[in-house]
């Protein structure tokens, strides 16, 4: 067909002039399996000319004869919307194939027959249907009257199980018989409502006088014109000229007015209905729509109320899991680092270097590194939730909540990503089509506690609330998320409302996750945490160590860190936080874990995180610790996140994010501290 950019020239690899068998079908129907079975190892993989779509060809042998089998891209229809569809469609349309094998998945026949009808509608006669995955259909309680099916569809139907090889010999036999002209077919083609049929006839008549009739099925051309298929419009225009084409377009417009919509969807609807009617003639026993266990579980997990409660329970379980298994590991690591500090110290003669290594690097970075098990377990938990398919259900539940707060439901996804790191989450907002939605999601994203803030939250929760640490940690997460949602409401008031395009969330079947992939994924992700400890946090620790030891060591009131902290203390004291907290928060902007690292250095802790916890317990009340955890979570996005917001939204929104977060953290910090003071 000369109508498109995609050119097919199978002759290149068909020097022997073999007869050609094309395999068509939906994606995932077992096309590759059948292709491999038909051709064995006699395959050649290349690209379709001019595009980077894989083209597979192979030689099928049958009774000493050879045939060229071409694997067409898997598609759901043959419109001109994607390159895959164009390749498949043009290959068939150009009459390249001596036989088209339409592979259909018998376990979900409707969508498969939709493609079948598109193929038959092109006027192709030499079609064999391979009714594949017949084993799966059987399992579902679906049976087929094959004879009836052949009669209704007008082409041979061969049931196959490509996995076991069942039916493949019959398939080969049918292919060869068809090539030899021993099978005559009478393909069924969809019939449409009267107004459409009338127009098809009208257009066909206009086309009859052109050379198109020699190469194409006119009915198919007419249908494609009604659908306003751009490729076909171009083709016909070349042969018909503007005058007649305008007449046709005029008719199409009138018909569109009549149906009040584009004709492609009208035609698709009627085709679908046509198939629905056909199927009932040969599907003997449609498996009852019995509610599966899967459906029942979904009913609960996606329920507006129970689903939400389940989500909260899952969240709590996640933290319980992280703490229960992570804390012992963390203690070991902690002991390791403090022993390391003690062991190394005597070997470093220079006092300054010793201070830097033991207090600065081991004390600061070590305190953060000992949280590695917790971070790793959090990622394991998230990976399990993802792999089981639960996340999609959580998305359905949260999507409703989001919308109540004026957020697009889709922004749930960036929010989930934010639990790992805010930076990719901010970048993911790009997928939201509305400007307003994008900005709001971007601005509230930093309020979702990322894995770095988890370190601070778990440290403070563990140090001050041993009994209820999981509850306190979940509490801080919940408060942050609630604040994110309320912020969305608030920010939404100041930004012009746009429209969200409606969407559906696919619910994959529940799967038992493979431990291997869960662990590999979690490790990949946690590695970033380690890398960060070796770069950003190390840099931060050295800087903090320097500032707190020069010109005079901390405690004198004269070190740079103290001076900085004391300058900010009047303000931070409004939240009950002293100068040490103020300094920690400043360094936390580089990376949030630095809040802990800074405390470690300011207290001159050499024995790791446990010792730090004891020192802090003596200096702070639980209320102050809670306030600090909350303020650390809310106060400012880290530098990287600010950078991401700037890259995605520009300077203005980066500034808004900084100011908004600072203001919010201050208000909440002051409020929580004072309220807590009165209540406790």
């Amino acid at each position, binding site marked *: 067909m000369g109508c498109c950019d995609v050119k097919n020239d199978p002759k290149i690899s068909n020097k022997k002039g073999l007869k050609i068998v094309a395999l068509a079908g939906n994606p995932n129907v077992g096309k590759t399996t059948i292709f491999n079975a038909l051709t064995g190892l006699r395959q050649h993989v290349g690209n379709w000319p001019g595009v980077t779509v894989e083209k597979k060809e192979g030689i099928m042998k049958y009774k000493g004869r050879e045939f060229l089998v071409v694997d067409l891209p898997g598609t759901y229809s043959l419109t001109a919307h994607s390159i895959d569809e164009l390749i498949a469609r043009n290959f068939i349309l150009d009459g390249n194939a001596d036989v088209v094998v339409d592979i259909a998945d018998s376990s979900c026949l409707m969508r498969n027959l939709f493609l079948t009808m598109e193929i038959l509608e092109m006027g192709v006669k030499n079609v064999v249907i391979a009714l594949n995955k017949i084993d799966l259909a059987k399992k579902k309680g679906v049976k087929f009257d094959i004879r009836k099916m052949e009669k209704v569809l007008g082409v041979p139907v061969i049931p196959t199980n490509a996995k076991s090889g069942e039916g493949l010999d019959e398939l080969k036999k049918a292919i060869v018989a068809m090539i030899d002209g021993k099978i005559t077919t009478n393909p069924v083609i969809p019939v449409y409502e009267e107004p459409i049929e009338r127009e098809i006839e009208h257009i066909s008549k206009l086309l009859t006088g052109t050379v198109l009739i020699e190469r194409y099925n006119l009915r198919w051309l007419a249908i494609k014109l009604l659908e306003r298929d751009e490729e076909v419009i171009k083709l016909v225009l070349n042969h018909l000229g503007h005058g007649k084409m305008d007449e046709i377009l005029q008719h199409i417009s009138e018909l569109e007015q009549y149906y009040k919509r584009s004709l492609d*969807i009208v035609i698709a609807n009627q085709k679908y209905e046509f198939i629905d009617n056909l199927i009932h003639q040969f599907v003997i026993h449609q498996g009852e729509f019995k509610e599966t266990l899967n459906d029942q579980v979904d009913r609960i997990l996606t329920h507006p109320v129970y689903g939400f409660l389940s989500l909260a329970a899952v969240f709590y379980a996640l933290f319980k899991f992280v703490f229960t298994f992570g804390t012992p590991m963390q203690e070991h690591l902690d002991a390791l680092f403090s022993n390391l500090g003690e062991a190394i110290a005597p070997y470093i003669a220079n006092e300054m270097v010793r201070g830097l290594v033991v207090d600065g690097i081991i004390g600061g970075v070590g305190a953060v590194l000992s949280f590695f098990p917790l971070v790793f377990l959090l990622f394991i938990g998230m990976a399990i939730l993802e792999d089981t398919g639960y996340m999609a259900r959580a998305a359905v539940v949260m999507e409703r909540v989001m919308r109540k707060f004026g957020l697009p439901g889709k922004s749930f996804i960036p929010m989930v*990503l934010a639990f790992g*790191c805010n930076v*990719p989450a901010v970048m993911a907002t790009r997928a939201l089509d509305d400007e307003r939605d994008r900005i709001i999601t971007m601005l509230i994203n930093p309020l979702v506690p990322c894995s770095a803030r988890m370190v601070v939250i778990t440290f403070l929760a563990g140090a001050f609330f041993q009994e209820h640490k999981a509850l306190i940690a979940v509490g801080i997460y919940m408060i942050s998320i609630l604040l994110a949602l309320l912020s969305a409401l608030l920010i939404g008031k100041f930004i012009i409302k746009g429209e969200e395009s409606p969407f559906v969330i696919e619910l994959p079947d529940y799967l038992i996750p493979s431990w291997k992939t869960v662990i590999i994924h979690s490790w990949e992700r946690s590695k*970033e945490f380690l890398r960060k400890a070796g770069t950003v946090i190390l840099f931060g620790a050295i800087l903090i160590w320097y500032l707190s030891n020069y010109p005079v060591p901390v405690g004198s009131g004269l070190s740079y860190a103290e001076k900085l902290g004391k300058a900010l203390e009047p303000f931070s004291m409004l939240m009950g936080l002293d100068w040490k907290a103020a300094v920690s928060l400043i360094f936390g902007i580089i990376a949030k874990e630095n809040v802990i690292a800074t405390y470690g250095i300011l207290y001159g802790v050499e024995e790791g995180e446990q010792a730090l916890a004891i020192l802090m317990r003596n200096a702070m009340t639980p209320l102050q610790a809670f306030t600090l955890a909350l303020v650390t979570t809310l106060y400012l996005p880290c530098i990287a996140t600010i950078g991401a917001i700037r890259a995605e939204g520009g300077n203005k929104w980066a500034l808004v994010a900084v100011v908004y977060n600072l203001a919010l953290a201050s208000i909440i910090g002051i409020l929580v501290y004072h309220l807590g003071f009165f209540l406790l």
Partner: protein
Amino acid sequence: MAKLDNLLELIRSGITNPKELAEKLGVSYEEVEGMIKILESMGYVEEIKFGENACNKCPLKSICPGSCIMFKGKIYQLKKKDFALKR
């Protein structure tokens, strides 16, 4: 009984749960899935890809400030093409 149309209409009304869509249309969940695929290939819905490569493309990758979580579920949204008449 224009099933594809009805499905689009229901999605447009704000139902995002495909099992709920299946119930409303009186078909199996599988069939809804199939209809979505057909609508996708016709250009009526499109899959949204949320930062699939956000982590790899991240400008801060070399000093990565954290860890990447990816959402694996598929989400399809209605395209602007919609039901509107083309002129």
